[in-house]
């Protein structure tokens, strides 16, 4: 009964109950993009990896870039939601669920991209059957599966109260199976003091867990590159650098999600400029860190100018000039200016900056992966242009688009299943006005 009174569900219920025509059109559009991706995937299965732009020198391309990108967003979601939860940040309520969704959804998509890179998908079970602990890929398999497991539990604990609220809200106009599902998933939670205490403890533990798992997983991912001897990859800074880049990209994606849901579900009263500025400041701090790590990494390579590092830097400033400038200059400086200077700090500006940051971080991964593979120790001597320079084919781009579409689709469906803003007090002890700030 207590829950029911506090319940702001009345206002959020239409979100779950109805889907507008635009909403359906959006879902159909996403399904079409995913369909194209499926077609591209079948091409790759039946005609071999030759349909991609990858060749013997650049053996990893856009797929790995997407893998790092989605995993990055995911870990960022975990770090941000975990940290906001642990520090009991007052303004977190309207945005924390989005961060949790980002974590889990991108965590489901990321590993799919590494699977696209694998020549023999039929032998995937070998990773477990014949796994060798010496290989960083095995570390990754262990770390990512732990992460998926941990993040799912964290998300579940975070939505449990809302599931109970949805179960108890009689006015909800939803098909019976949905109501039954809420009932089953709510696990008999009624909000007794004992249940609340247990749930709070579990959530605290899981928040701390997902933060540490996220750091470990993203470092392991970075080590896949830095344990090799390749110029540009063989760097001790890669672990922390990747972690920072990940959280940075995640903060930007969170801003984009806030902007989209604010508009689509008319949440202007709940997600205010205050929230954009708050997440914007997180983004600013991370931008500074990211810029520092990037600078530190390239400075040492450039100053010492070992032959192969020099060749790599030449390549970056020649063939990869624009991606390099966008990701390492624009992507670092723009948030510092836009969020740093009070005058520019508007919702639109912060959102536009977030778009630039997301793009620049994707490019950042691209110029980490591709140029190194294009400048190995032994110069590439080949007459075939596709062997010399990597350029992704329509198959890779379609699957990339499909990945983004799956992300949007799952996010849309998730917001149809459970309110995008938590409707029940997370701490239980909070006052009514706190819930909706």
């Amino acid at each position, binding site marked *: 009964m207590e829950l029911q009174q506090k319940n702001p569900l009345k206002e959020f219920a239409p979100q779950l109950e109805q889907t507008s025509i635009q909403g359906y059109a959006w879902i159909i559009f996403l399904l079409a993009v995913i369909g194209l991706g499926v077609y591209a995937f079948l091409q790759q299965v039946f*005609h071999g990896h030759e349909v991609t732009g990858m060749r013997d020198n650049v053996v990893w391309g856009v797929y790995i870039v997407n893998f790092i990108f989605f995993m990055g967003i995911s870990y960022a979601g975990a770090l941000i939601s975990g940290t906001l939860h642990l520090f009991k940040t007052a303004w977190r309520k309207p945005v924390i669920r989005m961060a949790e969704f980002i974590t889990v959804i991108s965590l489901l998509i990321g590993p799919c991209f590494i699977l696209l890179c694998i*020549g023999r998908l039929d032998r*995937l079970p070998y990773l477990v059957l*014949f796994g060798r602990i010496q290989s960083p890929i095995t570390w990754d398999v262990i770390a990512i599966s732990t992460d998926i497991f941990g993040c799912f539990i964290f998300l579940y604990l975070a939505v449990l109260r809302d599931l109970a609220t949805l179960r108890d809200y009689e006015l909800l106009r939803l098909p019976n199976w949905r109501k039954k599902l809420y009932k089953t998933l709510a696990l008999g939670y009624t909000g007794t003091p004992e249940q609340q205490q247990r749930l709070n403890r579990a959530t605290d533990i899981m928040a701390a867990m997902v933060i540490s798992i996220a750091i470990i997983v993203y470092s392991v991912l970075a080590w896949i590159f830095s344990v090799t001897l390749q110029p540009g990859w063989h760097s001790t800074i890669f672990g922390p650098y990747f972690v920072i880049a990940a959280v940075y990209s995640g903060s930007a994606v969170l801003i984009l999600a806030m902007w989209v849901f604010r508009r689509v579900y008319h949440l202007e009263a709940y997600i205010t400029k205050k929230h954009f500025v708050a997440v914007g400041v997180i983004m600013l701090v991370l931008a500074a860190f990211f810029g520092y790590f990037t600078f530190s990494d390239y400075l040492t390579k450039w100053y010492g100018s070992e032959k192969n590092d020099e060749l790599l830097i030449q390549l970056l400033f020649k063939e990869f000039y624009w991606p390099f400038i966008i990701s390492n200059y624009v992507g670092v400086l723009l948030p510092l200016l836009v969020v740093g200077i009070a005058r520019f700090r508007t919702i639109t500006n912060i959102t536009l900056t977030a778009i630039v940051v997301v793009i620049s971080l994707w490019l950042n991964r691209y110029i980490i992966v591709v140029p190194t593979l294009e400048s190995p*120790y032994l110069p590439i*001597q080949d007459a075939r242009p596709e062997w010399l320079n990597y350029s992704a084919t329509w198959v890779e781009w379609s699957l990339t688009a499909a990945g983004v579409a799956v992300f949007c689709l799952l996010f849309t469906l998730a917001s149809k299943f459970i309110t995008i803003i938590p409707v029940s007090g997370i701490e239980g002890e909070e006052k009514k006005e706190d819930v909706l700030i």
Partner: protein
Amino acid sequence: MEEELNKNQKNSRRQFLKKGIIAGAGVAIGSGLIAAYVDATATETGEKVKVLTTDGEIMEVDKGLLKLPRVSREESHKGIPGRKFVMVIDLGKCKNARKCVEACQKGHHLPKSQEFMKVYLLQDSEKTSPYWFPKPCFHCDNPLCVSVCPVGATYKRSDGIVLIDNERCIGCKFCMTGCPYSTRVFAWKHYPEFDEDKEPYSPEAGSPGQEGTVSKCDFCPDLIRVGKIPYCASACPMGVIYFGDVDEDTVTNGTETFQFSKLISDRAGYRYLETLGTRPCVYYLPPVDRQFEVERGFGDLDPAIKERYKDTPYSKKNKQ
């Protein structure tokens, strides 16, 4: 007519028995695998050759009956006992004839786009001399490719050879980024050349290739087992490539044989990119006392191959 047929049958029966005895002898000396060396459909020539069994025993087999052994996948993990193979490449003699590449591709049933042996045109710095650089797999003693493989599809054997099991490889390509020498190749599709090989797959033969997996130079352990040197070494018209055993301290290119340690010390042999710490088993003799001008390497090259070297400092300088 009928008589002739009978005679043939008798002959073949006699031959079969003979082959059986050879195979049986193999079992008797402790290796059932010797049977794998004998081709029951071939005819005898009377010339005997010595072969090395997987147990390190030497065995005489008729040359005509001989086929290259295809040991099982399990057996291929072990390596030939008591051996440690090494290759020496004399850069002073290479003129980019590319016979090594062709023989290797033929022997391993590879398409033109897959080269286990590659020939580079290198020039260490502006003022130093350009030279042709044949590059097989270095079969490193500290192989990063082996460390990073998540499923143990690539492994280092007791005889120093690094092999790939294409039945195990999942095609993640981590070994390709792990190798600092760009040695490994990937089967981006099913190449028709793979079908030329009708024999069952063996990692030692490195054939038939499989789509979606990684392969590379294997030092031809199937040839070593029958006492031959790898395809590249025997095909080279200049005798650039020497193959041998560190413990026996001998290397040969088929016509000349040298004491390995003396050759390396007399001719200042070195290993490529020693600083990387991979400890290769391939040594190079510096390109001194050249037998050919570098230009000779462009001699009668396929235009597509010639095209490869157009961006090298040497070619660019020549153009000017």
